[in-house]
């Protein structure tokens, strides 16, 4: 036993260091073990925000999601869903959910941005969960080519190659993405709302998500160079169009052609 050991044992920081190391490992291990998604931006919420959010929650959400967000028969537990879920669900009007059906549709947003943020603060305070994305990942400055490739592999089968909407089973659907805010696109990928799968940051990294947002922004801002798009629905729309308008017009002309002149 040399002076070295004596010195470290007597070092007041040693304990702190050991505790910090322990926390790091256990916290990281906890994160790995429960597969909590790494958040892109750690948002700090004040106690007042959390308490205001809780009031809004109790008034509008607790009847289905439980007084402590533990869930009821009518709605799942919100513990661990994160502020991103609140921002998405309430921010697109899907929540508060009304009525039953195969899927909750998007409808008129019922709360102000401020209120949504407060409710998000409350839910985030319950347990760590996906956070509202950093603004830098929402600008359309990514790689649209990479974004398009990722979109086709991960998203097009449900939403259609340019996000025009697609069918799922039993009356469910993947909605049209036109006009959806970049923030909501990001959040939806992150949280996997309803039957949409979760695209966590290990699968589609934040930069990948930004690339996808860039691709969608390009599609939205650049109408087709060929003319009207007929809803970007593909050959079905084109076939209907040629039969109804193309042949229809031509048959009308043949009737004129074959008719006796006055």
């Amino acid at each position: 036993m040399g002076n070295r050991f004596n010195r470290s044992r007597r070092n007041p920081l040693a304990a702190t260091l050991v505790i910090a190391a322990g926390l790091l490992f256990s916290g990281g291990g906890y994160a790995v073990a429960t597969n909590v998604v790494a958040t892109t931006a750690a948002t700090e919420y004040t106690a007042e925000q959390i308490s205001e959010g809780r009031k809004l929650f109790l008034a509008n959400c607790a009847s289905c999601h439980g007084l402590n967000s533990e869930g009821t028969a009518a709605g799942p537990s919100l513990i661990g869903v994160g502020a991103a879920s609140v921002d998405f669900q309430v921010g697109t009007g899907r929540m508060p959910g009304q009525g039953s059906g195969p899927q909750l549709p998007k409808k008129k947003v019922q709360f102000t941005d401020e209120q949504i943020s407060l409710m998000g603060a409350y839910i985030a305070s319950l347990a760590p969960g996906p956070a509202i994305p950093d603004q830098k990942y929402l600008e359309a400055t990514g790689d649209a080519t990479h974004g398009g490739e990722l979109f086709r592999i991960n998203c097009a089968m449900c939403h259609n190659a340019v996000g025009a909407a697609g069918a799922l089973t039993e009356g469910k659907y993947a909605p049209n993405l036109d006009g959806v805010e970049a923030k909501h696109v990001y959040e939806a990928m992150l949280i996997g709302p309803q039957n949409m799968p979760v695209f966590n940051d290990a699968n589609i990294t934040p930069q990948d998500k930004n690339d996808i947002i860039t691709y969608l922004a390009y599609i939205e801002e650049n109408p087709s160079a060929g003319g009207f798009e007929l809803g970007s629905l593909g050959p079905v729309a084109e076939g209907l169009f040629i039969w109804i308008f193309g042949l229809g017009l031509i048959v009308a002309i043949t009737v004129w052609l074959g008719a006796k002149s006055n």
Partner: protein
Amino acid sequence: MAGKDLEKGLEAEGFEHDFESGLAVIPPDKIKDPGLEPHRVRMTDKVPSKAKNAEIQVAAMFLVSVLGSFFALWAYVAFPITEDLSTVRANNLFLGLGMTLSLFGIGIGAVHWAKTLMPDFEVTEARHQTRGSEDVRAAAVEIVKLADSESGFSRRKLIRRTLYGALALFPLPALIVFGDLGPPVGNTLRQTMWKAGTRLTKDPTGIPIKAADVTLGSVFHVIPEGLAEMHHHKLEEKAKAAVLLVRLPQEDLKEAPEKTSWSYDGIVAYSKICTHVGCPVALYEQQTHHLLCPCHQSTFDVTEHCKVVFGPASRPLPQLPISVDAEGYLIAQSDFLEPVGPSFWER
């Protein structure tokens, strides 16, 4: 009962042959044909100024066409294409509209000319029976008979039969040269790129996937390690090796006893190639644990070894047995234990 072609009967020129009328009912007191309707005079024939108007209208349409042609020629040059794709839209639109007017003008003008100014008296033309007259047919028969007697075709059995044989067989060499259109199938349908230890990687980047990354509700689109870097045969391998990776709560998975080792901690990997006709079964419904193929809506239940629960597919998706390596990355334990994709004869 032989029927006569309407009342004209045998007097109709060239309609000498009497055909069987079968089940037709020919009443003796059919209402008589009143002949062509009297001609109704057009305005353009009655009133010369209307005819002049029609002429001006036709000429105007042809002029529209002329203008359209010039417009199209101008638009081709006036709307050049740059990197900005809205210039393509403009070029397409104006060039196309110019061409439309250029064509439409001629068409409408010509038709209007015919309708208003050309004579609209209906004309009758006699038909002739398609069947040849008796003498024509007799002459044809004579010619054939003559050819036959001069060649001896019917008489000379040896010549005739060997000729048939030769004609039947000569096309076959022309067909057999297509034999190298494609290689023999061999084992290609039964093997994929997956082997014991091959890492599961993300499509399209080829980045390996850790088991810890696959959270509940996730779906990963997977290709085998090495595929992303391939230059040759890449799509052919991908068309067999594409895989979907999802994680379910262990208690939801109803696994056959011999396949419990194929999953890892609730993570399962299934072939993405639909067993119906081969489209990628890519839609994953997180809550219902169903995989839906967008082409013909075959639906597979991930909780029950991807058996078919709806749609025209006929066999479950093959499962890829997986495990993890020392670093926590997901690896295949072996290739698929059955052929992936659509059913085939030799399966």
